Every structure is written in structure tokens, then in C-alpha cells.
């Protein structure tokens, strides 16, 4: 089981990433940017695509169990799924 998902490829970040990517593409398509700026945006766009693809390729569903602990806190532990 992998540890925490790396910060570049979390589902929560995906929404913002896609929104940013949309904005970058729209800006580049408007075709009125200085070359430097266009290239910087392009490079940023490539990073977003790479991270989005990394996330989408992650294959294994992580299932954990949330339980109340004796001391009033909580315990999160791996959950064993029954056979499909």
C-alpha cells in the first residue's frame, strides 16, 4: 500500500489543474501573447498534463476503515475487502 499520494497528483488538485489548463489553452489559442509568456504557459501546461495523467493512471483503489477509538479519538486502518 502506497503512503500518502504525492502532492502533485491528488484528486483534489485535479479540478484546479484542469481549470488552470483550460485557462492556459484558451490564452495560447488567443494567440496574442509575447513569445516568452506563451512558452512559459506552454511549459506549465505540460506539467499539468503530466500530473493529471499520473493520477489517472493510478490503478489501485485505497479502502480504509474509520472507527471510533476507545479514548474518544478515531482510528483509520486498512479495510480488507471480501472477494469480489
Amino acid at each position, binding site marked *: 500500500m502506497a503512503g500518502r499520494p504525492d502532492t502533485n*497528483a491528488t*484528486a*483534489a488538485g485535479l479540478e484546479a489543474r484542469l481549470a488552470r489548463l483550460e485557462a492556459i489553452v484558451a490564452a495560447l489559442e488567443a*494567440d496574442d501573447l509575447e*513569445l516568452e509568456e*506563451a512558452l512559459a504557459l506552454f511549459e506549465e501546461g*505540460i506539467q499539468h*498534463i503530466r500530473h493529471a495523467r499520473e493520477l*489517472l493512471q493510478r490503478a489501485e483503489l485505497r479502502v480504509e476503515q474509520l472507527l471510533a477509538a476507545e479514548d474518544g479519538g478515531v482510528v483509520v486502518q486498512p479495510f480488507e475487502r471480501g472477494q469480489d
Partner: protein
Amino acid sequence: MSWDPLEAGGGWGEIPAFVAERRTSPRAYTVSAVNAMARRLLEGSVPPLWVAGEVAGWKRYASGHCYFSLRDASARLRCVMFRADAQRLPTEPEEGMQVRALGTLTLYERGGDFQLIVRELEGKGAGGLWRLAFERLRSRLEAEGLLAPERKRPLPRFPATVGVITSPSGAALHDILHVIERRAPWTRVLFCPARVQGDGAAQDLARAMRLFASVRMADVLIIGRGGGSVEDLWVFNEEAVARAIAASPVPVVSAVGHEVDVTIADLVADVRAPTPSAAAERVVPDGAAVGREVALLAARLGAAARRRVSRGREELTVLRDRLGETARAALRAREKRLEAAAGKLDALSPLAALRRGYAVPLGADGRILRTTRQFRPGAPVRLRVVDGRVDCTVDQVWTDAATDGRQA
């Protein structure tokens, strides 16, 4: 002291024969004995029976026992429903409500009251007491504004963690995990087990909701169970569950497997799904569709960048002819960066490589296998090719002599 027919003979003329006889009888029964005898007689001769009538004067005491009468046009029957039975009622009946009660006739010896001990009480008409309980709670929650459409929150498009509250043994959990795994396997599922029917289920479900509310570990919650009878699903009409859902800091999707009836949980939840599978579909995006969206954006990004790069080249050509040597050096640096960016365009399109006949080997964990060390004979490997996937097994692994010189 008081008047007694057995003692007051004198003023009434001649004493009738039967009274005279009774006067000589050796003993009189005590009140207790008479009531006990009447009680035995009643209980011993009348089996449990259903009695239909209308409810009058329902009163629940602090003890939890409920007292009322059943009546029709010409008669009235005292009834008592003890706590253990009364607490199974979905709600208390209304005054005048037509009901039928299953119980046993008895005599309450201390008061000499003839009464029916009610074990079960059903309202007549569609849904009976269940319907009444539902409507009562619904109007109460409605009055508080908890069912208002403007309270409904949108679901996050890409939840990192989905909280699931259901039974650990039912099909609902299996269905939910199956759908999320198929659509969005990068998601983390946090499952909190709870009983979904029977005594204590409402408290269980409400406790699980509060647990999620306190830890704030989920971006969206699914609460539900598979289908069942009205009584099986009843817990989703309990006030404790409804209030816990209403208090959730994150959006809640209700998934009570029923086709016809809506539950209170459905009304309070931000989104109602007809089944646990449908709830999972609503909660996570379809990974394949997101992948297509990313591919489309990548294609647009590449096309726009190509246009800008070629325009840049033209601009540079024009400028070079006009400028002096120092400016040219600066331009060359820019040009270099331009070419580097152009090279990256290929990175946008792994599909282009696949189309040329390349395949990408993926391990069981979905990661790309780049070197021979990542292959083991007998291990499964998935090949991503241009139009799909091929599952294979590794036969033998050879490492190039130039890189390692070792055969696995």
C-alpha cells in the same frame, strides 16, 4: 355503616329466599379474590385477539407505558401498551385514528379495570402509523428549513476521499467499491461500518455521520443500504439520522435501495440516488472521460503552442536580419528555448508513439515498467497499445550485456 342488601332486609318487607340463603352462607369473598378470579377467567378463556376501533385519549407516561381507549359508536375499551411494545411504534397514533390492536384481555386487579394489553398497534389505511410518522417528521424538518432546495450543496467534481456509511456485510458496500474502482481508482474510500436496520441502527448511522463530521477526512459522503421492506428501511426515516445528515459539513448522497418510497434521509441529503451503485456513479468522475478531456486539452495546447512557435520563428528570422551582434546573441538564447519547447510537444502525445507501433508495459500496480529489473518471469504484465490493452505473462527476462551483463 353503609347500606348493605344483606343487612338491610328489615325495611324492605319480606326477605327473598335467595338472599336469606346467601345470608347463611359461611363466607364472603374478598375484593382481591373476586378480581383475581375475574382476571383468571378472562385470561384463561379469551385467546389474544385483534380489536379494531378508534383511538381516544392516548397518553404516554414517563415510564414509557402508554394508556388509551379504543372505541366505536357505542362502546369503549381501556387499553395499555407497555414500554417494550410501545417503543417499537414508529410514532404515536392521532386522536380518533382508526387502528387495530393485537392484545390480550385482562382485568387490572387493583383498580378492577377491564382492559386490553396491546402488543401491536397498526394504523388503518395506506402506510398507517409509518406514513403518519413520516409525515410528522417531514413537516417538522420542513418547518425548520432543513429540506429547502437552497440548502442542497453541489458535489465536488474530483473528491480525493469518499466517505461511505453502510453495513459491512451488505451488497451496498461491495457495489459502491466496485463502481469507484472502475471509474476512479485513484480515489481513497473511507468506510465507517454501521448497522442499517433493527434496534440501535439509527444511533449507529448518526454516530458514523458525526464521526465523519468531526474528523473532516472525506470530501463527500454516501450513506445507504440495499433494498428491503418498509420496516427494514425505516431507520432512514428516523429523526436522529435525518439531523445527522443535515448537520454534515460535506455534501451527503443518500442511497437507500428502494424504487417507490422516498425516505426522510433522501429529503435531507444533498443528492438522492436510487441505489448504492448509482450513488457511487454520482460521487466520482468517470476516469475514462477525464482522460479524454485531458487528451483533448493536450492536443489543443500542442496545436496552440506549435502555432506560436512557428510565428516566433518567423519573427526571429525577420529580427535577425535587422539587428546587431549583441542583440543576435540574446535572440539565439530565445531561439534555443523555443526549440526546447518545440521538442516537448512530443511529450504531449504518447498516443502518437503508440500509433507508430510502440507499446507501454504496465505492472500490476499500473506503473510503467521501464527496465528489465521490473520484470519477473511469471509475473503479469499489461501492454498498452494504441487501441486497447493486452494482458500477458512474462516468459523470460534478458538484460542487455552493454547495460548490465547479467541475465535475470
